[in-house]
């Protein structure tokens, strides 16, 4: 039997030795090194995503069960007022943190780039919140925004005795408390990225623009910002992923309240999965989150990729 096997293999190995090596065997060591990451991606990301999607069509409670109920979990999800509030809130939070952290971060970076004194000190101050965890940020801002003894009390102590500022207990504005805390934490990091981008611009470009008589704001707008496109894309990806996964900040700052006025999707998933023991509902919510991200991501990635292809062909 063993004889038989070696006889069969011999001509095959000879053939590969004479001809070019099999494509799968080229760069073998690199491929072996990549196997763990490939496995993590396949099992951890793709596998678990598929598992989540499959079980979102079941009536699983605390433990996964293969009782398929079609779109029932999704029906219930979209009927839930808490989910609706979560989606609305993540839209508000997303738009605000994108616009303001990009805008304010860029403006801060521009200010830092004016050869100011104590630049290192300022950079540290602005970047420091990023070193805190969201839980700490949430607690700090819970105290600061407290209507009875936070910033509001300080202003009342100054003399504006009728001053009222209590967005934490206001259904209408509690989500903006999360926006403020999120911006406080994230803007410094955006500034650091933007500053690195600005420093990467050739000083001769600035000189040329000055000789051309182009005012500084137009130089930024029409020359520097277009040159910083890669930095903006990196920043955008980082901010966007932060928006989708924001969770601990809400837990620490408002815990979704008052009522459901500051609930966010990630917290919805967590609460149903671990708090209420309703796996099917939680997975339905996370599947909706995933597909939303993909709906935004796929056309963009396709656009970027096809542009690059065109560029290399042209």
């Amino acid at each position: 039997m063993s004889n038989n096997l070696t006889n069969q293999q011999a001509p095959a190995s000879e053939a590969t030795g004479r001809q070019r090596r099999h494509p799968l065997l080229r760069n073998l060591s690199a491929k072996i090194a990549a196997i763990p990451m490939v496995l993590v991606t396949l099992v951890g990301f793709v596998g678990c995503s598929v598992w989540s999607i499959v079980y979102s069509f079941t009536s699983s409670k605390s433990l996964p069960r293969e009782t398929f109920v079609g779109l029932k979990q999704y029906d219930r999800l979209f009927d839930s007022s808490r989910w609706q509030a979560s989606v609305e809130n993540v839209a508000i939070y997303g738009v605000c943190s994108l616009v303001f952290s990009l805008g304010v971060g860029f403006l801060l970076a521009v200010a830092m780039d004016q050869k100011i004194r104590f630049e290192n000190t300022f950079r540290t101050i602005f970047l420091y919140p990023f070193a805190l965890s969201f839980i700490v940020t949430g607690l700090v801002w819970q105290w600061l925004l407290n209507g009875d003894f936070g910033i509001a009390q300080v202003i009342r102590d100054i003399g504006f005795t009728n001053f009222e500022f209590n967005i934490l207990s206001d259904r209408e504005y509690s989500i903006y408390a999360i926006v403020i805390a999120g911006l406080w934490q994230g803007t410094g990091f955006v500034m650091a990225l933007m500053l690195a981008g600005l420093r990467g611009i050739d000083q001769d470009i600035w000189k040329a623009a000055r000789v051309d008589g182009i005012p500084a704001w137009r130089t930024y707008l029409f020359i520097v910002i277009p040159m910083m496109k890669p930095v903006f894309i990196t920043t955008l990806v980082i901010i966007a992923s932060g928006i989708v996964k924001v969770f601990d900040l809400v837990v620490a700052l408002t815990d979704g309240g008052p009522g459901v006025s500051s609930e966010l999707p990630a917290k919805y998933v967590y609460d149903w999965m671990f708090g209420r023991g309703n796996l099917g509902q939680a997975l339905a919510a996370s599947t909706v989150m995933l597909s939303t991200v993909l709906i935004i991501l796929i056309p963009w990635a396709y656009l970027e990729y096809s542009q690059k292809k065109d560029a290399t062909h042209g």
Partner: protein
Amino acid sequence: MTSVAISDLSLSFGPVEVLKSLNLEVEEGEFVVLLGPSGCGKSTLLNCIAGLLDVTAGQIFIDGKNVTWEEPKDRGIGMVFQSYALYPQMSVEKNLSFGLRVAGLPKNEIIERVSRAAEILQIEPLLKRKPGALSGGQRQRVAIGRALVRDVNVFLFDEPLSNLDAKLRTDLRVELKRLHQRLGNTMIYVTHDQIEALTLADRIAIMKDGLIQQFDSPSNIYNNPHNRFVAGFIGSPGMNFLQGALVSEAGQWFFNAEGLRVPLSDYRFVHPPQEGQAVEFGLRPEHIVVGDASTTQPVTMQVDTELVEPMGADTVLWTNVAGHALTIRTDSESNVKTGDNINIGFNTARVSIFSENGERV
């Protein structure tokens, strides 16, 4: 008429004095090259003229107007940078026209200027492309075009050819010279490449340590260096320097070095020489005649060849005369071999003698 005048210009970065009370006058339509080793302040001087650096003291006049504190755009200058400094996200046409549009020029005027610059620099086929799709030489042409459309009297070049390969550099150098002939503008050009300086300039300003060492025509710079630094900086291979002293005998001056005595009958002294004065005797390798022709020269001697470097068009001989190293440049026809004892001759009218403090004697 004076086009650019600089009087007592000083610039310090903190305690470091980069320019020290510097004076320079550039005539209208002149091509002036600022030449010097890195760190000599030549680029700094150009940036001061452009208004990109604020001066510490002194004044700058362009076309008779004091522009010391004017913005760069109001000085009537155009500038070309070593790194091209094109706006990468704009097409060539937009690169050329952006400054004009910001300045609010009428549309047809902009079109006219851009097409004229494109025609002069032969970049018309490139107008729709972006800088990323251009070669280095094309990019530098566009950068020159951006200075051209500004319709100014003074062009400033900050090492514009240094990023190009040797072949392109030679081509663009010739083109720059043609451009200057065609436009007749004043051009101030910074470089560390002496060939560029010698070929392009009407006058060269040699700089060292924030001071102009000599401001003269290329031939004077080459043949009549005012000091030891200029003499050593210009020329490749560099000038031979022999240490020795001046002595006089029967009304005739001699250069005396160990085992060497050179009569200075044809040398024109700038300063009256002193008996026994320690000097350096400078002789350019290409001013030494080798072989039979050397007998016609006023001064002749014999040297030992230590090394022969054929360089194609000519050959460099590394020789030794009485313990002094002497480099000789001769044509490639000469059949000198290593170890040969050869006859050389030169004319002391073409040598340079410098005193101990580096000044020409």
